[in-house]
């Protein structure tokens, strides 16, 4: 699954992740007689409905309790397959349902793929009731906010000449090389190359630091991701994404921003993209996968939920 685990956990949610326990069970899947596969939570009225089909063509329903709706379908087992294409289809479907729920009801709190609650609708309602304070807060905090992903790629490295133009030391070295004897010129050239590499790295750093700072002023949260996306299923699905080798990725960021601030963020990115040789790749709005809180049971080991951020393109 995703390695972009820059998730922010809610401050006082009690968290129980059954890592060890689940890892032991990986070879033997837990049996589920009756369960509800959960896509996401949304703010919804009692008579809300969502018409869509979920994973494996299952009809999706929305189970509402007290203004909170859980988008779910009936299931009787874990979705597990050795077939990568199958898993991709499931993941894409999961994401599509979450997207549709978001369009219909506003920002959803997404669940990780394959999050299942044992029991029927009544069990889901009970859980929604028990956790209503936490869930309401999570939904209210995220309302109107979406996740946006930004990658800055240097498609064409900046010319040496351009760097020399901006740096007095490089110009001075260049002059000295012209005047020097052969051996000295050799060492000066080495020094010139080192300095050039330093300036190139410094330029990248200042570009990305500047971008982060400006984005942080508009967005609610900005996280830096690893520069190269980890191999994940979603990356393969969105094959036209940043995985290609047509430039060096200077930085990858994910941010949580209010939908009203989208234009302001867009114009910051336009400024960066105006630099020669730089390309800005922007995707979103996504459901706030990275920023959804971890929801947990109340210390009951059997009632642990994780919603690590899902893989995102």
């Amino acid at each position, binding site marked *: 699954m995703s*390695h972009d685990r820059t998730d922010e956990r809610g401050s006082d949610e009690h968290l129980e992740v059954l890592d060890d*326990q*689940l890892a032991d069970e990986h070879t033997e899947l837990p049996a589920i007689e009756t369960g509800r596969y959960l896509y996401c939570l949304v703010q919804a009225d009692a008579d809300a409905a969502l018409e869509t089909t979920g994973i494996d063509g299952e009809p999706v329903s929305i189970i509402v309790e007290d203004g909170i709706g859980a988008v779910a379908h009936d299931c009787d087992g874990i979705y*597990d397959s050795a077939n990568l294409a199958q898993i991709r289809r499931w993941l894409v479907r999961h994401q599509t349902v979450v997207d549709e729920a978001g369009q219909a009801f506003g920002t959803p709190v997404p*669940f990780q793929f394959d*999050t299942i*609650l044992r029991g029927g609708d009544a069990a889901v309602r009970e859980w929604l009731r028990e956790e209503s304070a936490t869930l309401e807060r999570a939904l209210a905090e995220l309302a109107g906010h979406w996740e946006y992903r930004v990658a800055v790629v240097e498609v064409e490295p900046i010319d040496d000449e351009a760097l020399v133009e901006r740096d007095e030391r490089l110009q001075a070295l260049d002059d000295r090389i012209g005047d020097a004897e052969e*051996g*000295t010129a050799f060492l*000066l050239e080495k020094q010139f190359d080192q300095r050039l590499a330093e300036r190139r790295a410094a330029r990248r750093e200042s570009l990305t630091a500047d971008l982060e700072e400006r984005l942080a002023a508009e967005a609610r949260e900005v996280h830096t991701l690893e520069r190269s996306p980890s191999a994940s299923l979603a990356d393969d699905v969105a094959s036209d994404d940043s995985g290609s080798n047509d430039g060096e990725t200077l930085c990858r960021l994910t941010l949580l921003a209010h939908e009203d601030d989208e234009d302001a963020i867009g114009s910051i990115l336009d400024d960066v993209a105006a630099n020669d040789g730089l390309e800005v790749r922007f995707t979103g709005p996504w459901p706030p996968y990275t920023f959804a809180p971890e929801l947990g049971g109340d210390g009951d080991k059997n009632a642990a939920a994780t919603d690590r951020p899902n893989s995102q393109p």
Partner: protein
Amino acid sequence: MTAIDVGDGEDARDGLMTLVITVVEILIDALEREAVRRMESGTLSDAEIERLGSQLATIEAEIDQLKADEGIEDGVDDLRGDLDGLVSDAIEQLHGEPPTVQQPGYSVFGGEGE
């Protein structure tokens, strides 16, 4: 990269040569950096700088010639690239989290079991 393959039989000589030249190149790079540093620090006279520079230039030219004669330019570049990757990986691992934590892709909660 987990192993340096120098090949066998006919290839072994090339492979070994590639490895040796790569290591020598890395050494020369380090020497050159040190030479630049000393030139910068002002502890060397102009004559010393000139001598050091021309010696290093000669060595570098010799190595380039040797690589061309042996036809191993690409091999040396590749190996250096691999070594760079190896070092970056090692640094990343030092920096913290293990790269992958194998976790099941599902979460089940509620009900019986466990």
